[in-house]
């Protein structure tokens, strides 16, 4: 049996590829329905519909919390219980969480990750009539702004830290490419009338107990903007914990980028898991092209150095353990910070502060240790 963890674009494509090869496949996802970050709320999407049409078994609403690669076994947990799931080949397609970078006030209620706010709104958070600023970097900001606006949000501004001089050549390069994610740039229609400010970024979020206004560096001038929500996005970073813990000859990792790249990587992983290496290899040139393109996005939207200076000594870096930047002074590496300040020791195990520390200090994260997510002690004892 081939098991795919993650029912996003990569996982869906992997499962369909396995099934095409005539092998048995099961997909596990912690969310109640397939689609991943991007298509979860959209059961009619072409790929989601195909996934369902092929009746691929989906174990949904359960999380992979632990696994034993030598025994080719995963431990799954849901709200009430736990079970084990054996596999012959494992495809890890768990997607890429958002990167958070700290600035004063980023922990105020009302400040969200861009994708996170979008997901909350999709699942019912009302934003009609609310003033929202979308800030950070990358094409995802446009997609988020468009979808929030559809739900009635009043988008005050999109602040893109990348300077215009880099954006326009990039936009030109896009025309003619059918990248789903980057149709964003062509979202002009949905975004008409929303101010789009290049070379601008949030320097602070302020408010009494919750977000009331932000301070923006707009091309060198500081301005304040009142708002109810701030959606900040600094890009995505592949989740590596499960892949690291399950590393071995029977584990294949897929999904390191935007939906198009994830689909391709998923198909390759699916064919590989099913043993059809020829089909897998046939897709590699296309995948390599997609990766090159993804890398050019990353370069264009690289976070500028000024953003390293935003956090002050009181700005919280590790939310789980309440560690402010000031306590990290003089620390030499992630492990030094971890052992001596508790930074990264909390429930999220450095998932949130890890990328921030890498950005601020160039430190690389501590080694992942199981469980992959907080897991009930009892789940680790389950036999069945």
């Amino acid at each position: 049996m081939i098991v795919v963890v993650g029912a996003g674009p990569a996982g869906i494509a992997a499962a369909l590829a396995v099934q095409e090869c005539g092998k048995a496949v099961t997909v596990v996802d912690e969310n109640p329905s397939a689609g991943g970050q991007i298509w979860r709320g959209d059961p009619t999407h072409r790929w989601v519909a195909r996934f369902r049409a092929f009746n691929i078994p989906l174990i949904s609403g359960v999380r992979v919390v632990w696994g034993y690669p030598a025994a080719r076994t995963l431990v799954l947990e849901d709200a009430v219980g736990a079970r084990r799931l054996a596999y012959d080949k494992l495809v890890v397609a768990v997607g890429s969480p958002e990167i958070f970078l700290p600035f004063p006030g980023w922990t105020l209620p009302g400040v969200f990750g861009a994708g996170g706010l979008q997901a909350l709104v999709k699942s019912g958070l009302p934003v009609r009539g609310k003033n929202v600023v979308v800030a950070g970097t990358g094409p995802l900001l446009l997609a988020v702004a468009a979808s929030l606006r559809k739900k009635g949000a009043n988008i005050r501004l999109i602040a893109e830290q990348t300077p215009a001089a880099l954006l326009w050549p990039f936009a030109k390069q896009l025309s003619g490419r059918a990248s789903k994610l980057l149709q964003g740039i062509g979202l002009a229609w949905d975004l008409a009338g929303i101010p789009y400010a290049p070379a601008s970024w949030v320097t602070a979020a302020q408010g009494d107990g919750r977000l009331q206004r932000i301070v923006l560096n707009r091309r060198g001038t500081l301005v304040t903007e009142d708002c109810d929500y701030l959606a900040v996005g600094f890009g995505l970073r592949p989740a590596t914990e499960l892949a690291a813990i399950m590393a071995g000859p029977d584990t294949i990792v897929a999904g390191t980028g935007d939906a198009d790249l994830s689909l391709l990587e998923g198909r390759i992983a699916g064919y590989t898991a099913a043993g059809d290496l020829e089909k897998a290899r046939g897709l590699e040139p296309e995948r390599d092209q997609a990766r090159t393109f993804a890398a050019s996005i990353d370069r264009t939207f690289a976070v500028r150095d000024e953003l390293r200076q935003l956090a002050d000594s009181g700005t919280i870096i590790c939310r789980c353990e309440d560690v402010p930047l000031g306590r990290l002074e003089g620390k030499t590496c992630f492990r030094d910070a971890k052992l001596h300040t508790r930074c990264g020791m909390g429930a999220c195990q450095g998932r949130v502060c890890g990328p921030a520390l890498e950005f601020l200090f160039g430190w690389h994260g501590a080694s992942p240790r199981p469980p992959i997510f907080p897991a009930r002690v009892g789940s680790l004892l389950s036999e069945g």
Partner: protein
Amino acid sequence: MFDAIHSFDVILVGAGIVGAACARELADSGLKVAVCHDSDTVGAGATAAGMGHIAVMDDSDAQFALTNYSQSLWWELAGTLPPEAEFAGCGSLWVAADDEEMAEVHRKSEYYSARGVAVDVLDSGGVAKAEPNLRRGLAGGLRLPADAVSYAPAVARKLLTGIQLLRGRVVSATSDGIEFASGESYFAGAVVLATGADLPRLAPELPVRPRKGHLLITDRYPGYLNHQIIELGYLKSAHSEDADSVAFNVQPRVTGQLLIGSSRQLGVDHADIDHAILRRMLARAVEYMPGLASLNGIRAWTGFRASTPDNLPLIGLRPGHRSLYVASGHEGLGISTSLGTAKLLADAMLGRPSAIPREPYDPSRSFNHHA
């Protein structure tokens, strides 16, 4: 004894809790001290992996003497420790599952009382009241109110304040100094090997073997526990020389987290989690404290204790050498016994009398009858 031409009076190899405590004691005795280590930060070896239970134990008279002496030193130090050291005098509770273990409670109670250590014997109801989350029907227990817990890496860091650190892997240590893998060397009037379970690399003739342990830390559940709780069966399992063993051992952290232990495995040298033994360990914990099953664990890890054939540390001159000392072999008690170790070592080096006899820990003692 110490010659002025040397760069340092003493170089210690190892910046764990033992090396740090020894360095502090020697520096406070007026010596010019340097500490070398090969980790990315101080306190990163077994010191970062251990539970930090500061216990008085009585496997042997010598173990009692050192743990008891050391614990009094911990209480002296406690007032000077920063909050990160998470020192808490929560006390220990040894739990007896049956009458046989209850007999052990009484024996221990007499042993400790006779030596001036405060203890309370609890009956079945007393244990249930002291720790409501323990399973019902336990025979009783023994409370040691002066036992404590701490977060050892922060203590090591504090002890090393103002002491010169040299970073690198030491490849050779002699009576005259040390040499790093880089080829760089330093002279010293004396050298101390405080390299924990790594001792055999620098002193292969000494009988130290790594004994692996697993731990799991939970999310925060303030008030769930009051004491560090250990099953009395622990004595049997900690003693069994070669077989893998697990025992129920759970600790309340200042953060509200629970640290669940413990396992012991000899002859394993990779640090990976061993799922089978971790499962046995957690199953044992849940047997004693069923509610643990529904609490979230956030991280599991392993570490290596430096075990010796007689379960006592090696403190003093390396046999056959002059001015080359050892402070290692502390097995599962190196945090507890670090401060006492430092006193005994400094006494030996400086020719001072000691508060307790040093002979039982002398590295040149005979281990034959344990072989």
